[in-house]
């Protein structure tokens, strides 16, 4: 298969970027999208040109590092799929546009690589259960209903890639934040800090410059692991109850 790639090239955060066109040939349907970029980079490097910088690591759809907007869609056209698990058999020959995540809160570092550390700072604000090492009760001492464990798991499965932000017209990270609040807030261990946590998470979310949620749903449409929209409602409910009562921590 042969393709014409139009790729965002930007030397660093301070330099303006632009789309640059590259042809690639001899692509096989079994190649992943990133392997197709590897082929391009091999060509560029062999010719002495700078390869296209892009983030990727596990290439198994779990680490959350890959972050490409392909033909205008975060992680590309295949539902419930990260860019690294997207295969060329899903494309027809022709032009493909490749861009980085677009969001004020995710500055471009180079080419297709953006800075997503804002998501780490949201976790720092309260995305944890305060469990000290060394004195935990027996794991079977607290029973967790299977429905709750499954719901917590569904939320915890968020890979933190940031596609939700890239897709949202408001640049909102509420799906990410809601998933974390739901994960920890659904479990018995997470109850004591639940209200405080929700408030802390959303406060940091806003401080990072992410926009507000207007329930458009683009986030869940592109989410590679299928985090549902109602996890945002769950976060909102916890924030409201925190605002009504006492959050429990300064």
């Amino acid at each position, binding site marked *: 298969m042969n393709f014409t790639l139009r790729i965002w090239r930007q030397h660093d955060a301070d330099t303006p970027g632009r789309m640059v066109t590259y042809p690639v040939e001899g692509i096989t349907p079994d190649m992943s999208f990133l392997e197709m970029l*590897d082929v391009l980079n091999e060509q560029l490097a*062999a010719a002495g040109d700078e390869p296209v910088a892009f983030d990727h690591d596990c290439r198994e759809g779990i680490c959350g590092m890959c972050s490409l907007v392909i033909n205008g869609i975060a992680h590309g056209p295949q539902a419930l799929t990260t860019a690294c698990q997207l295969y060329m058999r899903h494309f027809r020959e022709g032009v493909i546009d490749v861009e980085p995540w677009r969001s004020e809160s995710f500055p471009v570092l180079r080419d297709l690589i953006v800075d997503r550390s804002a998501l*780490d700072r949201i976790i720092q604000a309260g995305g944890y259960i305060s469990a000290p090492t060394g004195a935990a009760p027996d*794991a079977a001492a607290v029973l967790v209903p299977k429905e709750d*464990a499954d719901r917590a798991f569904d939320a915890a499965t968020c890979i933190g890639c940031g596609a939700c932000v890239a897709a949202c017209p408001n640049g909102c990270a509420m799906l990410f934040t809601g998933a974390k609040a739901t994960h920890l807030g659904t479990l018995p261990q997470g109850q004591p800090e639940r209200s405080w946590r929700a408030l802390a998470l959303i406060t940091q979310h806003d401080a990072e410059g992410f926009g507000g949620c207007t329930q458009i749903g683009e986030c869940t449409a592109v989410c590679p692991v299928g985090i549902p929209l109602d996890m945002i409602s769950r976060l909102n409910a916890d924030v409201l109850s925190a605002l009504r009562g006492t959050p429990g921590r300064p």
Partner: protein
Amino acid sequence: MGAVRAELFTTGEPIADTKAPTGPIQDRWDARRFALNLVSPANRRRRSVIVVGTGLAGASAAATLGEAGYRVKSFCYQDSPRRAHSIAAQGGINAAKDYRNDGDSIRRLFYDTVKGGDYRSRESNVYRLAQVSSAIIDQCVAQGVPFARDYGGLLDTRSFGGVQVSRTFYARGQTGQQLLLGAYQALERQAAAGTVRVGTRHEMLELIVIDGAARGVVVRDLVTGGLRAHLADAVVLATGGYSNVYHLSTNAMGCNASAIWRAHRKGAFFANPCFTQIHPTCIPVSGVHQSKLTLMSESLRNDGRIWVPRQAGDGRDPREIPESERDYYLERAYPSFGNLVPRDVASRAAKNQCDAGRGVGPGGRGVYLDFAEAVGRLGRAAIEERYGNLFEMYQKITDEDPYQVPMRIYPAAHYTMGGLWVDYDLESTIPGLFVVGEANFSDHGANRLGASALMQGLADGYFILPNTISGYLARNPRPEGLDETHPAAVEAVKDARRRIGSLLAIDGRRTVESFHRELGSIVWEHCGMERTALGLREAIDAIGALREEFWADAKVTGTDGELNQTLERAGRVADFFELAELMCIDALHRDESCGSHFRSESQTADGEALRDDEHFAYVAAWEFTGDGSAPVLHREPLVFQNLELTQRSYR
């Protein structure tokens, strides 16, 4: 370099002291903890530790040290600690909790692990691992890790290869992800508390040794290219394994050996480098441009049945091959463990079937992993509940529906049991340099049972290192006034800069990637699933020649002062060349088969690994002596007082 070198290595003094306490094995960890000095809470903020790597071992260690009150700096090459490759571990984590009353105990986990490692691991370490395993589950549940539960609200477990009890705790097929998020969240909690400073997109390029002790690292900021020395009282390496030496492996693309290799060059011994686990259940290679191999959790072998057509070259659709013309070779040859034999046994059996022409799929490098019987017995819903995400992943990659057609699997390079040598305190031969998780060699011996790596990573990080390193910090504080201006620190920065400069100066014609691919195929061919003396000698020569070509003809584009992924990769591949050579020397010298190390010259009449306890019951710890000079072998004898060395049998 082309000629066969007369002397590949020399032999030095055996390792005398591993700091392991003696006495009854169940009391040793207690005894050691009591003997270690403590640092009082008020003094801890005056002690600093650098932790490199943020996987299960590194994140849990940094978080726990921060929580204890030490000042911690943590570095990782990824954009967030949450992306460390521990996240990709699928199947589960072992713990001797015996919730199922099926005969499990600390002693049985200890026994299974030592036996699984083919008696090439230390009794004291493995017993301690089994002892703390239970606390790991408790800690993770307290953090909110959503392990699988049954309808009564209790934790669910399953079994894994090489054992006959159900001791594996899991979170669907994403156990590593959930455990890592627990450790990552604990780490970020400490970052917010100000006890840990996290440096993402930073790579360690040198170890700083001052007056014989590890006192810091040189890291490169991968965004700006800036090099900087960071000093601390002690250094912890938690940088994972080196399977990417094979190019195609189950590791993440960024996994590398540079941190441990740089430390090795500074004096840390490298133990058992040839012990690399080949995982039996990976998706087979599909083409030349493939960048990595994807592992399918070994837990699939609980319900999937492995078979090949009896007739070599049988090209029929697997669904059209009747039962009588299928060979369920593991069930046939190993009736007591069946499809759940350990990884080394399953991997070699698959290779043997394919070598005999019975392999399936493109190139005949695959065997079937068939769920038809399980779907019939349990129903599709039950299979979806247990393995749904793995089936989806398989379908995405291969475009085949494993609910309808059997999966095809083949072995691939996976976990490395070798690593930097550490004593019982997890301290390397450089005082003050501690090594945890897959980066050390300590607990798995010549093979690793499934669901044990997560256990070791978290045991090291949450419970063992935070105790042992305190003993060091109490006795060896950084001298007053020692900072980044120390000549050794300045020199280490210069070394890193020189090395980067020499990579950029090559200005050749071949891409770094092409060198990595070629190196990987040499190591896979000769130091992979099966090794021969002749093949290893050939490999050592080929690696040497390719390494020379690399330094003469590699093309490293761009400059140092920018985000430069080609430069990053070039540095890592350069280190892989040196490591690959040592792996082959180690494999060559170990003239026995054990666990994952299968020397063709040493096998039983029925083709199983034939150990030689009389001559090889030791850890091989290699000392670096300079470029172009032969490494020195130091032996650490392995003493078995609690377990009898027996021929491993799963029949």
